[in-house]
Structures are given as structure tokens and as C-alpha cells.
């Protein structure tokens, strides 16, 4: 499996803090997949993301982009930040101009894209993300879900190769969450590698095709979700829980589960149950 970004033995400490935020982190983000990085708050997920866009520099160890170590000179960093898009947990953190239209064009202007092209690309992304109506509404009139989508659009418009999302569904209600996940599927299908950090195991289980589990600044488990979530004991030792769906599945009679792969969504689960019903 080819990795698009890799961390090798990375150590990092926040200034003024005694504990290591990253503690010999070795972890690889597979190219072209949907990866979920799971772990508690404080396990190092966000710190890794800030390394991935070159905002933090490892105290020891190194990061590579498609096999080449990151360079921290100004030009290269600017380039890296066009290739790697980071969407923060709190959209207020990265929105700066007054309206979605203006804000989305901000990153393009930093990348010295000509004004004509800025306009076209901004209008296009607004449309494709269903934000056309809101283009000129001031940000402080938008709901949280809308702000999150504007933040995402502002990153996507740069056409990154790798998209990093920090707790993308935090604070969202269920319908906004669903809308966002559909968006992410479309983005992934267009060929972008998508990574999300989350502590919501339900989300990771339902969405990812590759799961990395972090704990205390290290990567402690990795693999496809079926595999990672099979190791219930290990997860519990880490203080993480099984996804509700999987827990429910395991509560079902053996006869029903026999020989069937665990379902990834409620719909799948319903289908299995129905089939069983007929076969009975």
C-alpha cells in the first residue's frame, strides 16, 4: 500500500508542557483511501495534523510527503499547504473574510491564482457544495453546519491531494452530519485522499476503509475497520468503545450472524435481519 504521508519516529512537545504530545509517532496515511484516526482527546491527533501542514516541526524524527521528507523553507511550505488541506474542528478558527464568497477565495489569493480564475473556481465550488444561495451572507449569520461547509469549501477550492479533517462532525446535528458525510464521499470519489480525526467510533466504523488508533502520541493499532474493531479487548484497554452498531450486532442471535460480515450501516443491518427472517 502506497502512503501519501508518513510520520517516522516523530517527537513533539508543546512549549510549557511537560508531557509529550507526540512520542515516537510512526504512522502512514495510505493514498486514495478514507482513513479515520481514532483516539481520545489529547492522544495527539490534532498535533499530527499540525505537523502534516508544517505548522509544527518535529523535535525529532521526520515527516515525508510521498516518500520525500518535508522541507521547511518558505516556498516549499507554501506548496505543501496547497497540497495538504486542513479543516479545523472549529470553523471560526479558519474563516476570516466576511462572506462565503470572499472567504473561499482567500486561499486562492494567497496561492497567487489570477483573479479571473479565482472567481470561476470560487463560484464553482460554492455551487457544487450547495452554498450558492449563501454566497453573500455574512459569516456571522450562518449556522454552525453551514460554517463548517464553508470552511471545507475554502480548503477544497485549492484542490488539495490530501484532505485532513479534525472532528468534522463535532457539534453537528444528525442531518448536517449526514450531509457532510455525503460531501466527503463525493470528494473521495473525485480522487482525493481523505483523513478524519475523530473520537466518535460510530462514525469511524461507518465511514472509513482504514483505521488508525492513536494513544498518548503513538499509533497503537492500524488496519481495515473490520480488523481493528474485532480486537475488542485492546480497544477497551485503550478506553475506547465498540461502535454501537457493532455492539448491537453482537447482541443478535448467533444463528442470524452466522457467516455474514458485520454490517456497516443500519440499512445493512436491517437487510441482514430481513433475510434471516425469510430464511427462518
Amino acid at each position: 500500500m502506497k502512503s501519501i504521508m508518513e510520520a517516522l519516529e516523530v517527537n513533539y512537545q508543546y512549549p510549557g508542557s511537560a508531557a509529550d504530545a507526540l512520542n515516537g509517532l510512526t504512522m502512514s496515511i495510505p493514498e486514495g483511501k478514507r482513513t479515520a484516526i481514532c483516539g481520545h482527546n489529547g492522544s495527539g491527533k490534532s498535533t499530527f495534523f499540525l505537523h502534516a501542514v508544517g505548522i509544527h516541526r518535529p523535535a525529532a524524527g521526520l515527516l515525508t510527503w510521498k516518500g520525500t521528507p518535508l522541507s521547511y523553507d518558505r516556498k516549499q511550505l507554501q506548496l505543501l499547504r496547497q497540497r495538504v488541506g486542513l479543516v479545523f474542528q472549529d470553523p471560526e478558527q479558519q474563516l476570516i473574510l466576511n462572506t462565503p464568497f470572499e472567504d473561499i477565495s482567500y486561499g486562492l489569493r494567497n496561492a497567487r491564482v489570477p483573479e479571473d480564475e479565482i472567481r470561476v473556481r470560487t463560484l464553482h465550488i460554492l455551487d457544487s457544495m450547495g452554498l450558492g444561495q449563501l454566497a453573500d451572507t455574512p459569516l456571522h449569520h450562518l449556522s454552525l453546519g453551514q460554517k463548517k461547509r464553508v470552511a471545507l469549501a475554502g480548503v477544497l477550492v485549492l484542490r488539495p491531494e490530501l484532505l485532513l479533517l479534525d472532528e468534522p462532525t463535532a457539534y453537528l446535528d444528525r442531518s448536517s452530519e449526514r450531509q457532510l458525510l455525503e460531501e466527503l464521499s463525493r470528494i473521495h470519489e473525485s480522487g482525493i485522499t481523505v483523513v478524519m480525526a475523530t473520537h466518535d467510533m460510530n462514525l469511524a466504523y461507518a465511514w472509513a476503509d482504514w483505521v488508525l488508533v492513536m494513544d498518548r502520541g503513538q499509533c497503537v493499532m492500524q488496519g481495515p475497520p473490520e480488523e481493528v474493531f474485532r480486537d475488542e479487548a485492546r480497544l477497551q484497554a485503550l478506553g475506547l468503545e465498540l461502535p454501537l452498531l457493532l455492539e448491537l450486532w453482537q447482541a443478535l442471535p448467533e444463528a442470524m450472524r452466522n457467516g455474514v460480515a458485520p454490517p456497516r450501516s443500519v440499512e445493512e443491518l436491517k437487510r441482514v435481519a430481513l433475510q434471516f427472517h425469510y430464511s427462518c
Partner: protein
Amino acid sequence: MIRLIDTYAYGNKLRSVSPLWKCGFTAAMFVLSYMSHPAVQLLTVGWMCLWTVGHARIPMRIYAGLLGTCFIFYAASLPAVLIEIAPSGTQLPGTTGAAFSFTFAHWTAYIPDSGVHASLLLLCRTAACVSCLSFMMLTTPVSELLQVMKWLRMPSLVIELMLIMYRFLFLLDTAAHDMYTAQMARGGHSGFKSRLADTASLVVRLFTKTMQRYKQLANGLIARGFTDEIHMAPYRAVSVPARYWRESCAGIAALLLVELWLRWRILL
């Protein structure tokens, strides 16, 4: 409260009209208001009201309330403008027949005619100016005013600072208001001492929050390619409907004519 004017500025019927034109129009009206006679100033008030309430569709209730709050200052300073105090028995200057006088321990407080006259003139001028200002702020959002300032070659640092301030005003205001509510719910702000302490702790919390926001915003913007300047979207010229051009030119011309006629009459 800080959202009220802002919301109308974004939602009014003149929002799509060029901000540059609106500012130019307001500036012209400001000059006219300052230079003209009370009669013309009162006409200006009526005409600007027509623009704000009629064309921009700002509800009359909101508009009147806004003008009302502006005039608190006028009313507050009235006593100082109106009342003259002089030692009793001296020749009272500026008065032929004082409308009101009150003597206490060798001092006389009185309202000279000139005071009444001056305060009425002042009322006309402030009313005209306030109606111009409210037209601009109710029809043009701050973000578009920033574009106008950029067009006027305001140093980019000022615009950037205004941009960030405006962006975070609402956030911090909400945070302060929420904390105040929580303090009330926990029985705070009871008695002078506790109100002092609660206000101080609120300010401190707000300050630490502000500094947290600063660190987050720095990361957020650097990740989006921020290096040294916040590049604003360029000013996009918007056409102004011919109707507004006609109406504004005709109106200004009419006001000027009235003004000239008044001056000419006085000269005679």
C-alpha cells in the same frame, strides 16, 4: 443589540446597490446638511427618511428608535446649551426678554432667547446629519464599507485590523453575554461588591478566551497560506440603477435650489 443594525445592513433592499455610490451620496448629503439653512436641513431629514424607509425598506419602528437613541446626547447636553448663569444684578448678555429665569444666592440662571434659537438651529443640523449617517449604516454592511475604504487608499493595516475586529466582535459579544447569563443563573451580580467581582472575572475570562482565539486563528490562517497580509477580495464595481441616479441628482439639485433661493432672499 449590536446585531440589529448589522442585520438590516445586510438585508435591506438597497444592499445590492454599489457601496461606493451610497457612500458618495451620503458624503454629498453631509456637506449639504452642514452648509445649508435649517429649512433645507429639515427637507433633508424628510428626504433621507424616504430613502431609508421607502427605498431600503427599513421598518419605521427601527428607524425611529435609532434616531431616538442618537438624540439622547442632544437632550443630555441641552441644559448646558440653554441655561446661562450670571451673577445677579449684572446686565444679562444675549437677552432681550429671558423666557425663564431663576435667582438663587446672588446667581441667576436664565434661558436667553439666543440660547433657544441656537439650540433649535443645532437640532436641525444634527437631525440632518444623523439621518444621513443612518442611511449609510442601515444600507451598507461594514464589509462593503471596508471595500470602499480600500478604494479610498486607507492603509492596508487599518483595513486588516478592522476586518479581524469585525469578524470577532459578534463572537466575543456572544461569549460575554453567555457568561453574564450564566453568572446570573448562579445567583451572581447580587449587591455592589459581587457585581464588581463578577464583572472583573467576566472580563478576565473573556480576555483569556480572546487570547486562545488568537492562537487558534493564527494556526487556522497559516494552514490556509497566510504569510504576511490578509488579502481582501478586490472591489467589484456594481452598476447603480438609473432610477437612483436620477432621483438622487434631482433631489440634490432641488435642495441646492431651495438653499440658493434662501440665500438670495436674505441678501436682498
